[in-house]
Structures are given as C-alpha cells and as structure tokens.
C-alpha cells in the first residue's frame, strides 16, 4: 500500500555515513502539508527533527524543511505569527519541496532566486511519477510530481542538480535546496542526505564566522 516502497534502492552507504557523523537539528515547517514524511526521512538519516509552527521554534536549528502542501495556506499561516519574517532571517540550510519551493521563491519569501509557475503540469489527473536524471549520479531518482510547479526562470547563482526532460526539477543555490517533486514520498534518501550535507557545511561556515568575528553571527 501507500508508503511501502521496497522497489527503490536505499541511499548509498557512504552518503548514509556522511549524514550520521553528527546529529543535526532540523526543523520541519508544520503549518500544513506533508511534514510527517520529511520528518521520517530525516530521522532515518540520523537527524534530530523539530516541528516548526512559531518563530521561536527556529532557534538553534541547523536546517529547515518547507514541505509540500498548499502554498497559499502555508504563506497565510506563516504571516499570522511573523514566521515569514523569521524564515527570511533564518541562516541555516533550507530545503523546499513543491509548495515549499514556491514559498521560498522571488514572489514570496524572496530567499530563492527563482520564478516558478504553480500547477504547471495541470490538475491532479496530470500528476505523475517519473525518473529524474541527477548530475554526477548514474542512478536516476524516482520522482513523484503532484500538481507540481515548474521553474520558469532561475538566477545566475542557481545550480541544476536534477532534470526531467531538460527541465530543472532539483536545484541548489548556496545553502538552499529546492525540488519541484516529493523526495519525501519515496524511500530513496539521497536528496535528504544531500540536504543534511548542506546543513552540516552551513553549520561549519557559521561556526567559523562566529570565531573570526568575535562572536557575531554574520550569516550569509
């Protein structure tokens, strides 16, 4: 049934190992949407997962996942308690999937240098599963695309990591990772492991910045 996913390969052992060196504290925005699945994937990789519903929940986090859901709903709930501003000032790594990517784009929080078309493939009957080609990895990644958005335009600093028929579907911009599909709905943990590596690098950078500036966290 839903959720059982034995046909898909587990993450490669070295990625597993990389992610388990040190427990990272990762928040999952839990206003609305598929936050439980992200929490499960991250926990399986050894991260300590915290549900984020209010600005103070962001304190002390190394990374934040903005899950899929309805972007209009997520934005409205975020604005109610000032979580939108808190997220703009959050300095850890951030991973947005589907609606979460929309929340982070130029038009919304303005963190990611992307322009995105919502529901670009059509309504639910046009939702689909397909293999995504990953840069530097021969093994394709099975992607679940649900009323998925499409990246219309991306800024110069955005690196394409995954493509579907020539369209960018998984991209990275510095400490940000963005997917138009749902890696949390399959048991392939490669994308989450990649995000944890970003979060770890970001944590090291911030630590270094803290020591060189005499305790002032300069951020990005």
């Amino acid at each position, binding site marked *: 049934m839903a959720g059982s996913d034995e046909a898909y390969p587990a993450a490669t052992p070295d990625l597993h190992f990389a992610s388990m060196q040190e427990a990272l504290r990762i928040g999952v925005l839990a206003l609305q949407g598929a*936050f439980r699945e992200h929490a499960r994937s991250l926990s399986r990789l050894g991260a300590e997962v915290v549900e984020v519903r209010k600005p103070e929940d962001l304190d002390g986090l190394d990374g934040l996942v903005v899950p899929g859901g309805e972007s209009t709903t997520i934005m409205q709930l975020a604005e109610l308690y000032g979580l939108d501003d808190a997220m703009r000032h959050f300095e850890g790594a951030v991973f947005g999937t589907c609606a979460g990517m929309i929340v982070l784009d130029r038009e919304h929080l303005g963190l990611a240098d992307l322009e995105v078309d919502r529901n670009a493939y059509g309504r639910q009957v046009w939702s689909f599963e397909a293999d995504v080609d990953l840069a530097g990895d021969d093994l394709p990644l099975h992607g679940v695309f649900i009323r998925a958005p499409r990246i219309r335009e991306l800024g110069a600093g955005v690196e394409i990591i995954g493509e579907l028929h020539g369209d960018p579907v998984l991209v990275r911009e510095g400490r940000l990772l963005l997917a138009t599909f749902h890696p949390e709905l399959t048991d392939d943990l490669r994308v989450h492991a990649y995000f944890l590596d970003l979060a770890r690098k970001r944590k090291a950078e911030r630590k270094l910045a803290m020591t060189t500036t005499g305790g002032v966290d300069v951020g990005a």
Partner: protein
Amino acid sequence: MAEYGTLRVKTGLAEMLKGGVIMDVVDAPQARIAEEAGACAVMALERVPADIRRDGGVARMSDPQRIREIQEAVSIPVMAKCRIGHFAEAQILEALEVDYIDESEVLTPASLSHHVDKWQFTVPFVCGATNLGEALRRISEGAAMIRTKGEAGTGDIVNAETHMRAVFGAIRELKTARDDELYSAAKEHQAPYELVRWVAENGRLPVVTFTAGGIATPADASLCMQLGADGIFVGSGIFKSGRDPVIEHEGWVEDVSRRARAIVEATTHFEDAKVLAEVSTGLGQPMVGISASSLPDEERLEVRGW
C-alpha cells in the same frame, strides 16, 4: 516514461492536504472566501448539507458549470461530490478534472449495495467511514483518502467524535493483537486480511484520514485533530454561520471569513490552547445546528454506505 494515476500519486495529494481544512462551497464567491481564509482545498457541492437536510429531495452532483466556475476562481485543489455508487457522475467529474472525488453519503445514494470501483479512475477518491471495517472496505475499492463520518449538516460534533474513536480505537486494538488473531479480526471487520495486517503492523490506516461532519467551531477542529485526524472537512459550519446573508450580506461575508480563518488556525495550532482561546474570541453566531440525537433514523446521513 511518466506514469499517471498511480496509487502513490493519488495518496500523495492527500498527504499534501494534511493539517489543513477542506471547505464545502457551492459557488465561486464562497470558494474565494475559503481560499483567502487559508483552506487547503474546496469541495464543490450543489447545496451544503444543512440545506440538503432542510429542503429534502434528491441531492446530486453539482452542475458542471458551477464546478468550472469554482476551478477558475481558485488555485487550490477543487474536490467535488458524487453519489455513492454513481460511477457515471464520477466519470463526469473526472472529465472535468476535479482534483479529488468525494463519494459521499451526504448526497442521495445511487446504489444500495455497490460503491464505485475506484481503481478504474485516474482521479483519486475520498470516502466516508464510521468504523475501521468500512474504511478498509473503501480502501480495498481504491479510495486514496478516508474521512471519518459525522452527522453532516447538524453542527453537532458528537457523531464525528464517536466514529473517530471507533476507527482509531479499533486500530489500537489491532496493534496489540497477536498475529494469529488477525484472521478473525479480518472476519469481524469484514475487511481484507492483507489490509487488516497492514494496519496492525503500521498502527494507522494506509491512507490519510480526515474527519468530517458537525464541525462548527475552532474548538471542534482541535478536538478532532487531538483525537488523531490528519485534517478537517468543514461543511455547513462556515457558510451557515454568522449574520443573515439576506439581511446583511457584507456583515455575513465578514463573519464567515473570520470563522473560516479561525478554524484554519485552530487546525494548525490544535495543541496550543492559548492560540485556540484567541481565535475562538468574538466569532459571532455559529451555525444554529440540530442536536444529532434528536434526528429520526431516516434522516441520518451517516448510516448511508456499507
């Protein structure tokens, strides 16, 4: 090669709706109010349950014109109801590309023994259930989402509470059952053994489970979430509340918008009583409602479906 209409794609959309509120709407203006209030989806229907109850007669699928207007008015998913067993209505709704079909007991059933064979469709279905067996039978027919039934159109939460406890209580019992007891459990629940075993092993239904029927206040929404619902359907509870729309239309829009938003907030912050107290304040008149226990048997909607 892209694959469409897979079980994962169907259940996946329900996963994205979790923690959200799906609101019943009859036309585009109501759909806009719902979207602006933070609904994660809207449900298009001909009349809200309270009106179906009041007016009687046969309740059917909405006019496609209305559904198209709602689809154009909002960007969130649009669901629509078909009658139990009315696969032709379901085919029409699929052709209209609604995002989810609710095979619903709120409409007048079209079959006394057969639900729609939901595996034949690309569009996903949500179905109602009063107990675990009923939920698993619907899942075996292809439902990709379950909503526990309440007594729709009453504004009385008691039946929703009863059925959530029935479904989640039965799941807790299965979790502690011995493996060799699951065969007889399958017989008792009149559900396929494989699904009963899946539930016993995983401690939940294999699909997202919302609750519906009689939710009228933020506190009702919190009660349902605390009892284990993944999200909430609100029908008459929003658009049948507030000032009289005929006498004071502007005031009514304000009332229903405030209540809709309060229920959305309560569903997200269901465990935070301070937020609940705040959002419950000054909401105006809730829907008047009918005590579900005062209904004669022939007027109860929840017993439809089998």
